[in-house]
């Protein structure tokens, strides 16, 4: 067994008594078989009994002990302390998942997370036979469609790693999208259409995702929420839920451009997505870009073609013709 000295800078705050949070430093001799939860326990048991954090199963399944170490979302019971020092050095900064929601030390008010979870109706909606004679079976293939979405333990790691959550109160967030996908794809569920409609709504739905991949990086169960978000986007088109709006036209507009030029027509995609009336928002920016020589004054007019063309464009056009599966 190896041990080494690790400095822990720990976020401390009591919303009832403290005006501001502060960081307290603890030096611990840490062994290579300890997980981060062991260190939280030792702070409480050996240094300061008032130190507060959530914990329960110690097996990576209850989702209670989510914290951040040097900005990385983890389950404290799952991450080996030595491995954390390999990533970040021998000074580790322990913080709650969301500092602005801190109640006491590592404990946060997770009510926004649970409200979003509830908002996507995270259970199968079906006509239930009260006296069933057999199970409601789903096939292996149908189960595989769920990908790994069913492994989510609602720990909140992705939710509080998502930058959109912090600037848009309506946004469902990655964990709720995983749940929405998990039930939308469930062959026993009767509410797929409604689920896709809810996650297609501007503001709350998947079109507000910034594609930063923070959620994939954060998930302690390796679920990759962004993958389910991408699936929800595509399902809107597959199941004809998508309505024509700035975001859906923007996604579909790539095919339109690539078919014509191979490349994206940067001016056209804005005009096509926004519509001519929506262009007023972009006139000042367009003027500045023209002035700087970034775009040409007549870019984006339908009768003008200033866009470079890919060589062998006909190959690209043929591939679109034979491979395109979705339509807006």
């Amino acid at each position, binding site marked *: 067994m190896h041990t080494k000295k690790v400095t822990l800078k720990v976020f401390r705050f009591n919303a009832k008594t403290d005006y501001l949070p502060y960081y307290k430093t603890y030096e611990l001799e840490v062994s290579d078989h300890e997980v981060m939860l062991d260190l939280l326990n030792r702070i409480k048991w050996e240094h300061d009994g008032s130190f507060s954090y959530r914990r329960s199963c110690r097996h990576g399944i209850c989702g209670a002990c989510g914290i951040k170490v*040097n*900005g*990385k979302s983890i389950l404290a019971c799952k991450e080996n302390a030595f491995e954390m020092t390999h*990533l*970040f050095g021998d000074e580790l900064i322990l913080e709650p998942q969301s500092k602005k929601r801190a109640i006491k030390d590592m404990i946060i008010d997770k009510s926004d997370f649970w409200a979003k979870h509830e908002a996507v109706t995270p259970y199968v909606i079906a006509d239930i036979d009260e006296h069933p004679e057999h199970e409601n079976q789903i096939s292996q293939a149908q189960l595989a469609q769920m990908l790994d979405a069913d492994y989510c333990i609602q720990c909140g790691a992705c939710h509080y790693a998502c*930058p959109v959550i912090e*600037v*848009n109160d309506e946004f469902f967030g990655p964990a709720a999208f995983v749940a929405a996908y998990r039930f939308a794809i469930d062959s026993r569920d009767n509410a797929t259409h409604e689920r896709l409609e809810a996650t297609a709504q*501007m503001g709350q739905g998947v*079109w*507000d*995702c*910034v*594609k*930063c*991949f*923070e959620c*994939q*990086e954060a998930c302690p169960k390796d679920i*990759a929420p962004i993958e389910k978000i*991408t699936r929800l*986007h*595509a399902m809107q*088109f597959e199941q004809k839920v998508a309505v024509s*709006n*700035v*975001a*859906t036209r*923007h*996604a579909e507009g*790539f*095919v339109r*451009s*690539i078919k014509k030029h*191979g*490349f*994206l027509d*940067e001016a056209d995609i*804005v005009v096509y997505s926004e519509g001519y009336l929506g262009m007023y928002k972009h006139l000042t*920016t367009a003027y*500045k*870009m023209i002035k*700087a*020589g*970034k775009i040409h004054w007549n870019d984006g007019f339908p009768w003008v073609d200033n*866009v*470079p063309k*890919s*060589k062998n464009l006909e*190959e*690209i056009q*043929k*591939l*679109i013709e*034979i*491979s*395109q*599966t*979705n339509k*807006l």
Partner: protein
Amino acid sequence: MSQLHYALYTGCTAKQSTPELLSSTLAVAAKLDIELTNLEEASCCGASHLQDFDPFLSHVLNARNICYAEKLGLTMVTICNTCQLNLAMTKEALDSDPALKARVNEKLKEVGLEYKGTVAIKHFLYALIDDYTLEAISQKVTTPLSHFNIAPFYGCHNIRPSHLHKSENPYVPNSLDNLILALEGKAVDYASKNKCCGFHVELQANHTSEILAGNAMIDAIDNNADMVVTPCPLCHLKMDTYQDNISKTTGRDVNIPILHMPQMVALALGCSADEIGLKYHVSKATHIMPKA
């Protein structure tokens, strides 16, 4: 060192709204004697949006892009984070799923192509750092950037998901910092260097987009940055083109030059003002050029 030779995937932005990215990339390659063969046949990568509409089509088109690098037998080099990630995601999907690869190749066969999975795809930043090496670059510096505080802005798609970017710790990325140091600049340490610029929701969630870009720029400015440098032209466009709007939304003046990574290298290697192309920036940046 034998001459480095790559297949260059320019992406769309470098051919249109950021001509300075292409000219500075070519200028850096010329100075360092790196040969770049332009993939003239390449199409748009889908910019992380095409796969929302039609995931299979996105794989087919990106597999075709990679095919042309495979034909040349050259590592594919990208100059945009989002191109890099989209191509790398298709490569990962096809290399790990033989059934998908077969379905894609069935389509590619119709145009006489086959995806094999034989070439690597890397961003020019890592071609410079891993293959050319920082040491060799520092020996070529003629205009040290020693009087500049430079804030590295990594851009999501070059660091996350981390299994596709193995050389970088997404929480403490350091490639761009090290490059700045090799050019004798001062690398600004600030918490937002690995955050999102919000570019991808520019149209449909403008407020989100501007707050995210603004937060990062304010963080850089508050840490005394003279300029921000990024390997991603989409981050560049967001932070350079929309400074006035971002200032209005955040209530802070976010005026600061936003350089493409190759522009910064070109500056240190003594490339010409035309090659560096600061005149193509919307926000004032030409003042950082050394006086002739």
